C-alpha cells in the first residue's frame, strides 16, 4: 500500500464529484475526451467479486482488472461541474454532483497564488430587483396601451445632451433653427451588448455576438449596439459598414488602439461611440487580466503583444483627477473622431460613483456622453476570486443615487446613465432593464446573459466559472482551436437574436400597462417593493 498523507487531496475535497455508473458505462471514452479540465481519466481497478452459481451457496472469489472512469483527485484538475461529460455520454452513465463537503477554498491557493476564476460572483446574489414589482398599472382613468398595436419609441441616448437653454437655437419667422453643432448623441436600443473582448471571448463567440448585433439592426430594425471590449477589433470590421453598430472601448491597457487609430482614415462610417473603461464590476479597482493561456496568435496580432499574461493597470496611468481625465481622455477621444462620435466612461459602482457623476455633469466642456455604472454582479473574463466575491457595489442603489443627484440639480438626462452588472441574472433581462430604467437609468448593458445564450453553463453557484483557464468547455472563453470548434456561431447568434426579440416584446408588455409609449426613465412611481428598506433607500412605494 502506498504511503498517504492526511493532507492529500481526495475527490471529496473538490467542489464537484463525478458519479459514474459502471453498469451503464461502455467505456467509450467520450467523456474523457470531452472534459477540457482533464478531471476524469480512464483507469484500471482491481475488483474482487464473490460468486455462487450452484443450488447451494458455494461462494468462490474472482479477482479481475476492470476499466473504469475515475475522477482525478487534484486541485488543478478539479471538476467544474460543467456537465460536458454528461452531455456527451451516450448511456447516461456519468454526471457531476455538487459536493457539499468541498474543501476547495482551503486547498486551492497552493504556491501562494490567489484563486482566479471566470466572472461570476458567487456571493452577493440577493437581488434588489427581485423585490421590486411594477405596481402602478393603468386601469380606467389612464387606459393601458395595447402592446401589440400601439407604436412604442424604445430608444435611449448615447451622448451628451445639452440643457434646453443651452441649445443653439434661434427663431426666424416662428421657426427655430440650429445655429451651431451639438455634441453628438446617438439614439440606440436601451440595451447594449457589453464589452467582452476578443481574447476574453473566442473569436467565434465574439463573432456570434457581432453577427446577432448586425442581424438585429438590419433585419429587425432594433438599433442594438455592441461594445468591442478592450483589445481592439478585426481590421476588416473597422473598415466595414457594420462599424456603426460598434462601440469602441479603450481601457487602461490601451490594447488594440494602435490598430484602431491606424484604421481611422479608412473607416467608411463612424463607430456608434467610444467607451473609456475606468473600472468594471467583477473586479473593481483591478485592471484587466487576460491570462497567457488565452493569448493566442490572433490575439497577439490584434493587440500587438507577445504571449504573456496581459494585465491592464488598475487605472489610466498619468490621470489623477476627474478634471484631468476630462481634458486628456475625453478630448483626445472626441477629437480622434472629429467630435462626431459620443464618448462615454464606464466605472465600477462604488461609494464615490455619485461624486464622479456630479463632476462629469458639471464639467464645463460638456463632453462626457454617458456614464456606465457596472455593479458587483457584472463582469466575465478572469479575476481573482477574492475580488470577484468580496469587492464591488450593487448597481441598483448607485444608479438611483446618481439619478436623484442629477434631479436635484435639474440635470437629469444630460449625461445618460447606463447600468449593468447582473442585469438578466435570473434570465429575465427585460424586467430587470425596465425596473432600472424606472429608477432613472437610460439603458442597461448585458454581458453574461449573452454568453449563456451562446451555451455557457456557468452559474452563480460555482458551476464551471473556468473562463480564465482557456479551457472553456463551451468554446466561448477559450482560444484553443479544438474547443472553439464546439461553438456553432450561427446557432449562438440565433439564440441571442431570438432572446432579444422576445425581450423587445416583453418591454412593450411592461410599458403598455403603465401607459407609456416611450421609455419610462425615472418613472419610479411605477414601481413598488415589498421590502421596506428597499422602499426607503430607492424612494419607491412600500407595499405589502
Amino acid at each position, binding site marked *: 500500500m502506498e504511503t498517504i498523507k492526511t493532507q492529500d487531496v481526495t475527490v471529496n475535497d473538490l467542489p464537484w464529484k463525478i458519479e459514474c455508473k459502471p453498469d451503464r458505462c461502455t467505456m467509450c471514452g467520450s467523456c474523457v475526451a470531452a472534459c477540457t479540465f482533464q478531471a476524469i481519466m480512464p483507469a484500471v481497478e482491481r475488483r474482487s467479486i464473490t460468486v455462487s452459481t450452484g443450488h447451494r451457496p458455494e461462494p468462490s472469489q474472482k479477482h479481475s482488472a476492470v476499466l473504469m472512469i475515475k475522477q482525478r483527485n487534484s486541485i488543478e484538475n478539479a471538476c467544474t461541474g460543467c456537465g460536458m461529460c454528461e452531455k456527451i455520454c451516450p448511456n447516461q452513465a456519468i454526471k457531476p454532483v455538487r459536493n457539499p463537503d468541498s474543501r476547495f477554498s482551503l486547498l486551492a491557493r497552493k504556491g501562494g497564488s490567489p484563486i482566479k476564476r471566470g466572472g461570476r460572483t458567487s456571493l452577493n446574489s440577493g437581488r434588489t430587483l427581485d423585490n421590486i414589482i411594477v405596481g402602478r398599472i393603468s386601469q380606467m382613468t389612464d387606459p393601458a396601451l395595447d402592446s401589440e398595436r*400601439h407604436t412604442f419609441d424604445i430608444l435611449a441616448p448615447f451622448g451628451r445632451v445639452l440643457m*434646453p437653454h443651452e*441649445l443653439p437655437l434661434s*427663431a426666424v419667422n416662428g421657426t427655430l433653427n440650429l445655429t451651431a453643432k451639438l455634441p453628438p448623441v446617438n439614439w440606440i436600443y436601451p440595451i447594449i451588448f457589453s464589452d467582452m473582448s476578443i481574447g476574453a471571448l473566442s473569436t467565434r463567440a465574439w463573432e456570434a455576438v457581432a453577427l446577432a448585433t448586425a442581424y438585429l439592426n438590419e433585419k429587425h430594425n432594433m438599433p442594438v449596439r455592441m461594445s468591442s471590449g478592450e483589445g481592439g477589433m478585426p481590421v476588416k470590421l473597422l473598415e466595414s459598414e457594420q462599424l456603426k453598430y460598434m462601440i469602441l472601448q479603450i481601457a487602461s491597457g490601451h490594447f488594440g488602439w494602435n490598430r484602431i487609430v491606424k484604421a481611422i482614415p479608412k473607416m467608411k462610417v463612424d463607430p456608434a461611440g467610444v467607451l473609456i473603461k475606468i473600472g468594471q464590476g467583477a473586479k473593481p479597482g483591478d485592471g484587466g487580466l487576460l491570462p497567457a493561456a488565452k493569448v493566442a496568435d490572433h490575439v497577439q496580432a490584434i493587440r500587438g503583444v507577445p504571449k504573456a499574461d496581459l494585465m491592464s493597470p488598475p487605472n489610466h496611468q498619468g490621470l489623477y483627477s476627474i478634471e484631468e481625465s476630462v481634458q486628456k481622455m475625453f478630448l483626445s477621444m472626441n477629437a480622434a473622431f472629429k467630435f462626431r462620435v459620443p464618448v462615454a466612461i464606464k466605472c465600477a459602482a462604488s461609494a464615490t460613483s455619485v461624486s464622479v457623476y456630479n463632476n462629469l455633469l458639471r464639467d464645463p466642456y460638456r463632453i462626457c456622453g454617458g456614464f456606465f455604472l457596472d455593479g458587483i454582479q457584472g463582469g466575465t473574463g478572469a479575476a481573482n476570486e477574492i475580488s470577484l466575491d468580496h469587492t464591488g457595489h450593487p448597481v441598483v442603489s448607485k444608479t438611483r443615487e446618481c439619478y436623484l443627484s442629477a434631479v436635484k440639480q*435639474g440635470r437629469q438626462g444630460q449625461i445618460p446613465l447606463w447600468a449593468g452588472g447582473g442585469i438578466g441574472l435570473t434570465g429575465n433581462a427585460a424586467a430587470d432593464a425596465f425596473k432600472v430604467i424606472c429608477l432613472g437609468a437610460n439603458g442597461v448593458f448585458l454581458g453574461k446573459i449573452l454568453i449563456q445564450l451562446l451555451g455557457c453553463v456557468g452559474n452563480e453557484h460555482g458551476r464551471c466559472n473556468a473562463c480564465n483557464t482557456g479551457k472553456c468547455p463551451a468554446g466561448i472563453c477559450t482560444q484553443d482551436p479544438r474547443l472553439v470548434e464546439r461553438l456553432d456561431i450561427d446557432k449562438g447568434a440565433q439564440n441571442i437574436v431570438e432572446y432579444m426579440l422576445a425581450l423587445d416584446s416583453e418591454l412593450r408588455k411592461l410599458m403598455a400597462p403603465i401607459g407609456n*409609449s416611450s421609455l*419610462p426613465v425615472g418613472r419610479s412611481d411605477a414601481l413598488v417593493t415589498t421590502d421596506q428598506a428597499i422602499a426607503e433607500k430607492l424612494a419607491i412605494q412600500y407595499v405589502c
Partner: protein
Amino acid sequence: MCRIGAIKSKEFFHPSAALHLMLPQQEGHDNSGFAMVMQDMAGVFSKYKDKPLLSLACTQKGAKLVEDYMEANDFRQLAEWIPRGVKNVKLDIKAMPYYIFRNYDYPEYYRDASEEAKGELLLDTRLALRELLEKQEQGYVYSFWPDVLTLKEIGDPWDIATYFKLWDNNGDLMAKNVVVQCRQNTNYDIVRYAAHPFFLQGYTLCANGENTFYTKNKEYQKSLHRGYIGFESDSQNFLYTLHYVLQELKWPIKYYKHVITPLPFNELSLRSDGAELRAIRQSLGSLEINGPNTVIGMLPNGNIITCCDSKKLRPVVVGGDGTMVAIASEVCGLNAILPHRNQEQDVYPNEREVVIINDALEVERWKQ
C-alpha cells in the same frame, strides 16, 4: 375624467355662459372642484385693465394678512369686487368666508419698470401671499395679474353659481375669454388649489386626463423655475411646460406640442427640421407627457389653444358661430351655448394637431 372648456368671444359675455357649457357634461365630474379663469374683463374691473387683479379665497384672518402684506409692499388698492355669498344650507358648496377680487396699483418705484420686471414682481407677490396664507392655513391665492380673474370652489357647479349669484347677469362680471373646468377628482384628497385651470404669469391652462409622466415632469420642473410649485394636480405640469417653452425659452408656440408629445424618432428623421426637433426632444425629454390628455390653454395675448395626447385618448371639440368660439370635452356642451352654429364646421383635433383661436376668432390649425 374632468370636463374642460373655453369660450372666446368678440363681445363681452357673462360667465354663466361657461356654466351652461359645462353643465350638460356634468355626468363626468364629481363636484370636487370647479374653477374658471376670465381674461379681458369688463364690468367692475373695466377701468383698471392694466392694473394687477388679485384673486383669493380666505378667512378673515387671511384677509388681514394679505392686506398687511400688500400695504407693507406698497401696493395700493384701486377697486374691489367681493361677492356676498347666498347663504343657503342646501347648496352643495364648501365656501370659504371671504372671496377677494381686488385691483392694485403697482408700487411707486415700479411704475416705470419694464413689463417683464412687473411680471416678476406679480409672481413673487403671489408666491409670497400663498406662502403666508398656507403657513397659517388661512386661505388660497390663485392669480395676481392684470385683467385676469380666477374663481375656484369646491362643490356642485350649479350651486357654486347660485352662491356667487352668477345666474343673474347684472353686468358686474363680464369677459371676452373664459377657461373653465369641472373636476373629477379621481386620484387624491380634495384640495382647493387642485381645481384647474392653473395660472402663471399670463398663462392659463386646464387639462383632462392622466399624465403618467407626472413624477418625471415634476422632478424636472421643480428645478426650472421658482413659480413651478404646488403640483396639486398632474395637469399642472402642462401649464409649467407651456410657460417654460413660451416665456422662459421664448420659443414659438408650435414647439409646445413638440415638447409635450414629441414625434417618434423615426418620424423625426424624415423631416427637414428633424435636427432641431431631435435636439428639442432630447434636451426636454423630461417634459414629455404620456397618457391620455386634452389640453386647453390661454396665452397672455388672449389666444386660446387646444391639443391632445399623442394617442388621442381623450376627446375635444371646437365649434363657433362667428361671434363666439367654444372648446369643450364633449359636443353637448357646445350644443348648449352655440345651438345655431354650423355643426359641420366643428373641429375635432387629432393627436398631431394644434388649434389656436385668436382675437378675430380665426381658427388656426396645424399639424405638429
